[in-house]
């Protein structure tokens, strides 16, 4: 199993100063990940989702990280491919450039955005987002592999054009897609793409979903690009020596992450002021109950919080389900950066050696 870090770039109740600190802290964590042997650092693309994600220009962040690191892979995912966000040619150019400056370290993920904030701000045609994503997903690898690219489709009509530069990784960087529901996971597999999922459900559910993906991707035969057979789970994580402290800060962070996400994705609103989400520590009862419930039968594989012993047990559950990569969300809005750094170190020293980390 491989282990990576995930950057939404969250801040609870941001100020201009704390936002600047956040970016510096994330760069520091990416450098730490590079030194400690993590597989990749992933950076998302979101727009206007204040507090939940301040990572609106991942190509800039990752370029900077590329220059400050030596070996860690750069997960550019997911890029929003519908044209109102990013024209496919611009995506192909940026990913290829990042692959060149990082000497072939890019993993590319694509998605279409399901947040009303983004969909409305960029004046997208919501019913057409899926079609645009699908078409761009097919076009971009062709741009990387052909000298003169030409396309005539439902969403795009592109005259013969030389799309340059070309990526270092040949024929192209590994490609992934955002998916969390079984249907979208199946579609990613049918397209021969790696699956980027949020951790959801219990062991049986996850195992079934991974098996569905693995069966389907094995049978996929993409005509114009190389198949990526890779199932990744993204989960809120905090691992500290002191189990109680990890639970206090980790559960609070995981709850902030989930509730901030709900505010943007489930409310049907387009929040433009401070989010109405809980930011305080869990009550003593909830903390005790949530701590006890970890790794018990029926518990959800939706966060990885606790001491190294507890974390190893949780990671083993993902490994048994057949997950290829755990993308750890340690940087959560309410977790102090010093604790994130501790967690990045402790996880690398006390948990990763018990698994192979793809080495």
């Amino acid at each position, binding site marked *: 199993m491989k282990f990576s870090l995930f950057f939404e770039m969250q801040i609870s109740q941001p100020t201009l100063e704390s936002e600047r600190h956040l970016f510096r802290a994330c760069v520091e964590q990416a450098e730490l990940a590079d030194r400690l042997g993590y597989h990749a650092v992933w950076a998302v693309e979101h727009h206007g989702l204040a507090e939940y994600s301040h990572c609106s220009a991942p190509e800039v962040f990752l370029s900077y990280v590329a220059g400050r690191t030596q070996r860690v892979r750069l997960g550019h995912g997911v890029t929003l491919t519908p044209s109102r966000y990013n024209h496919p040619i611009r995506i192909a150019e940026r990913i290829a450039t990042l692959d060149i400056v990082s000497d072939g370290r890019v993993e590319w993920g694509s998605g279409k955005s*399901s947040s*009303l904030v983004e*969909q409305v701000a960029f004046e997208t045609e*919501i*019913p057409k987002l899926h079609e645009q994503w699908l078409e761009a997903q097919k076009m971009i690898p062709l741009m990387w592999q052909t000298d003169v690219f030409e396309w005539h489709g439902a969403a795009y009509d592109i005259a013969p054009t030389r799309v340059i530069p070309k990526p270092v990784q040949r024929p192209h960087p590994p490609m992934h897609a955002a998916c*969390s*529901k*079984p*249907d979208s996971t199946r579609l990613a597999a049918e397209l021969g793409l790696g699956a980027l999922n949020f951790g*959801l*459900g*219990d062991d049986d*559910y*996850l195992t079934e*979903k991974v098996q569905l993906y693995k069966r389907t991707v094995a049978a996929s035969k993409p005509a114009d690009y190389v198949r990526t057979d890779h199932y990744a789970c993204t989960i809120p994580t905090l691992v500290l020596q002191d189990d109680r402290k990890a639970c206090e800060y980790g*559960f609070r962070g*995981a*709850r902030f992450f*989930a*509730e901030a996400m*709900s*505010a943007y*994705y*489930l*409310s*049907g*609103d387009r929040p433009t002021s401070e989010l*109405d989400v*809980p930011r305080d520590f*869990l009550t003593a009862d*909830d903390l005790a*109950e*949530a701590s006890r*419930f970890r790794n*018990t039968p*029926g*518990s*959800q594989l*939706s*966060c990885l919080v606790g001491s190294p012993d507890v974390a190893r047990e949780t990671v083993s559950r993902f490994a048994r389900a057949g997950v290829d990569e755990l993308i750890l969300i340690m940087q959560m809005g309410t977790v102090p950066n010093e604790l994130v750094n501790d967690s990045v170190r402790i996880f690398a020293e006390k948990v990763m050696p018990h698994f192979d980390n793809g080495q």
Partner: protein
Amino acid sequence: MPVSARGSAARFFDTLVLVTRLTPPMLSRRADLKGLHGVVNFQLTGAGGGSWHCRFVDGCVVFGRKTRPDSRATLRLPAEEFLRLLAEETTLWSLTATGRLKVDGDGSAPMVLGFLSSQFRRIQDADGLNGMFGRWYANRVLGTTQRSIR
């Protein structure tokens, strides 16, 4: 007085079942329902509990009594906890993390509870007739129209 003593989870669902029968499919803002699909069963245990289901079809949601065998998931939780969720005294994350919410089937189905509770809050804050209905409905379900303030 705790919300479990003054409120009724059954009234939450029974009102929606009635509205489903009387009006065309509701909450039909497609964007709101993006990603929600199929049938989800609810089994609320304890005082004021019962069984219901909701079905998402073409961007609309309809409610019915009892569970359905063709569901993609069944969500089980104490009726009291469901009321606390509606009253913003707990969160969906806490219900899941503490094991008070049990999920059989599709692990993404708890999002439906998040959707229902956020729409419940939203309609109380609406203007005009929708808001009047929302506050009447909240009073019927929670025994108060006052949204809690964190």
